[in-house]
């Protein structure tokens, strides 16, 4: 697990929203606020900001709280929100784009080789380790 109290380096906030929309390929304006993404999300209780809030907050430009939120690391990438959204908004891609925006800043890795020691056990498949590195580190 990563250091919970680490100070994150923030990207240039003037471009953050556009950047997130660009790299995600998501158009948050397609959202009709039905909340089905959050209704279906298995990580809901772990998250401070929920999938529908990611969509809404990116649209309204409220990016900073999202960048700082631990919710970024709770998303399971299970694609349930993508599959069930009636409007094809693909909220998970936004969560991923926000996380990439954080992790692409130097020193913002959520996961380091040191963190590996904390959770590694002998049964752990390689897949878990490469996935964690890919999701939590740039």
């Amino acid at each position, binding site marked *: 697990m990563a250091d919970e109290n680490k100070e994150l380096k923030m990207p240039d906030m003037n471009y953050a929203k556009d950047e997130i929309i660009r790299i995600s390929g998501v158009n948050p304006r397609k959202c009709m606020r039905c*909340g089905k993404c959050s*209704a279906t999300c298995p990580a809901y209780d772990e998250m401070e900001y929920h999938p529908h*809030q990611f969509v809404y907050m990116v649209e309204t430009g409220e990016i900073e709280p999202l960048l700082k939120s631990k919710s970024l690391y709770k998303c399971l990438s299970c694609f349930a929100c993508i599959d069930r959204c*009636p409007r*094809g908004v693909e909220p998970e891609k936004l969560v991923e784009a926000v996380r990439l925006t954080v992790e692409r800043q130097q020193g913002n890795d959520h996961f380091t080789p040191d963190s590996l020691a904390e959770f590694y056990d002998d049964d752990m498949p390689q897949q878990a380790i490469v996935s964690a590195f890919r999701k939590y580190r740039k």
Partner: protein
Amino acid sequence: MQRIGVFVCHCGTNIAGTVDVSQVAEALSHEPGVVYSKDYTYMCSATGQGMLKDAIRDYNLTGVVICSCSPRMHENTFRKAAEQAGLNPFMLEIANIREQCSWVHKDMAIGTAKAIVLGRAAVAKVNLNAPLTSGETAVTKRALVIGGGIAGIQTALDIADAGFPVDIVEKKPTIGGKMAQLDKTFPTLDCAACILTPKMVEAQQNENITIYSYSEVEDVKGFVGNFDVKIRRKARYVDETKCTGCGLCTEKCPMKKVPNEFNLGMDSRHAVYIPFAQAVPKVATIDPNYCLKLKSGKCGLCSKVCSVGAIDYTQKDEIIEEKYGAIVVATGYNPISLDKFDEFAYSKSKDVISSLELERLMNAAGPTGGTLLRPSDGTHPHTVVFVQCVGSRCEANAEKGKEYCSKICCMYTAKHAMLIRDKYPDTDVYVFYIDVRTPGKNFDEFYRRAVEQYGVHYIKGMVGKVTPEDGKLKVQASDLLDNRQLKIDADMVVLAAAIEPDKSARPLATMLTASMDTNDFFTEAHPKLRPVESPTAGVFLSGVCQGPKDIPETVAQAGAAASKAIGLLCKDKLKNNACVAESNEMMCNGCSQCEKVCAYGAITYVDKEFRMPDRTTQVRRVASVNPAVCQGCGACASACPSGAMDLKGFKNDQILAEVDALCR
């Protein structure tokens, strides 16, 4: 040489704002044939029309060009005025200098130059115009209504009331449609059957109405005022004229495990059946897919018990042919299939039902006799969850669902919720909504009553997943206003499925050459100003076939469609389009190209004798246009390889003259 008058309209500042109208009038006055050219603020006003009439008389005009708005707006106005002044209306042309010029340009010089060119083209055309007269055809004074739901019934009653014979073609064994399956109706909560069945009986008793139940339209030919229609009367293996509807056969039939479509498969019927007690016509129908006698030759019990000898296993489909002046489409709707929405567990649990299924479960004539019981175990549900917008308001071109709002679901869900709370106060009712849409007389009051008086829990948010577990339905949903994910253990889940046009609509539209939108709803001639007419003349639209609507709106539209049909049937003769195709027989080589492209079947071929230059005679096959059928689309004229086919009013030389004028 023509004597042409030119009138340039200012349209207030609509045109004059970006076009120097006086300069246009001045420039066009020098065009060949122009003897009079003037500009005026509003040509469409009575004064403007007076100016036109005076000029026609005073200057002996033989042709007129009006530089104004689109011909779709005022061509008729000006042509009528010209006719009143003694000019053939087809000698008047419009140059559209508003929509196609002043509205799209900002620069006065460019706008003015373009307006002059457009006017010049119109003058060039008028120079070659010839007076045209419309032919006339008689109107068959009989109407056809396709679909026997509340829309079709109401339309038929209104047309019959005006004194015209009308036939209803209904594919099911009885008329009544979806409304017959409903329990109560919003916002007054009167019983659907109580208000529908009197109308069904009225339709049956009306001398002007013939009901062809268990029948389908097979083919449509002809045109407004003169449609030739073939109707297939499917074999019901029962003589309709003999059957008294006593129901003895349906009781004795040993095949009693046939899914009952009237109750949406939630109970069974026999292979010989009458759909419901108040069916019209109340005659039995044998289902050939299940009847033992028809399938294997064994049984024949129904025939033995029928005291009037109405059973006829040898009956065959019958095609009847009839002529109609007007056709009203009232093909209605169905709820969409919920197969692709299994996140709501529709196919996994019997207790997840559609709203239409709930109507049957609440109805006294339904599978439970009107007691709300869970289909799985027959127990009383204590918690019921309603999910709105299932398959409505989805992304465009989604693999599942429709892009439109189905319009009726908010209200019927409020009704269902209210009725359950009224009948079973111990049952908790949740409604998950995205938006509550209740525009309509007494509609929002009705919805508020569900909340305030009946205590229905309305929650803003969508249900994400329903999982059957331990006899319960675990509902996981969003409460967006509270920013919470809710988990409710429900006994029943009711899905407000989107509605879609009946599957028969698409092939019918092809037969009628009536246009449809991408969702298979019939398109109106104009979405605001001609909402009950199809763009195909003589075809009218009634009910949900045109777009989602509730019963009051359907009945209103049914009446409107009837009045349009009556307006048509009242006429003895119809004026045909004067701008029809004609074939120059001397040039026609009988190649059939024109016939192939004609969507209206207006072109036939005749063998004609021609005298050749050497005084011999030769019989040649040449095209002949029926001017009553031709719609003047011009497809034949452009397809004709020898230039024999031409469209009156839009002849090839006229078009070329316009192009030349534009390019000058």
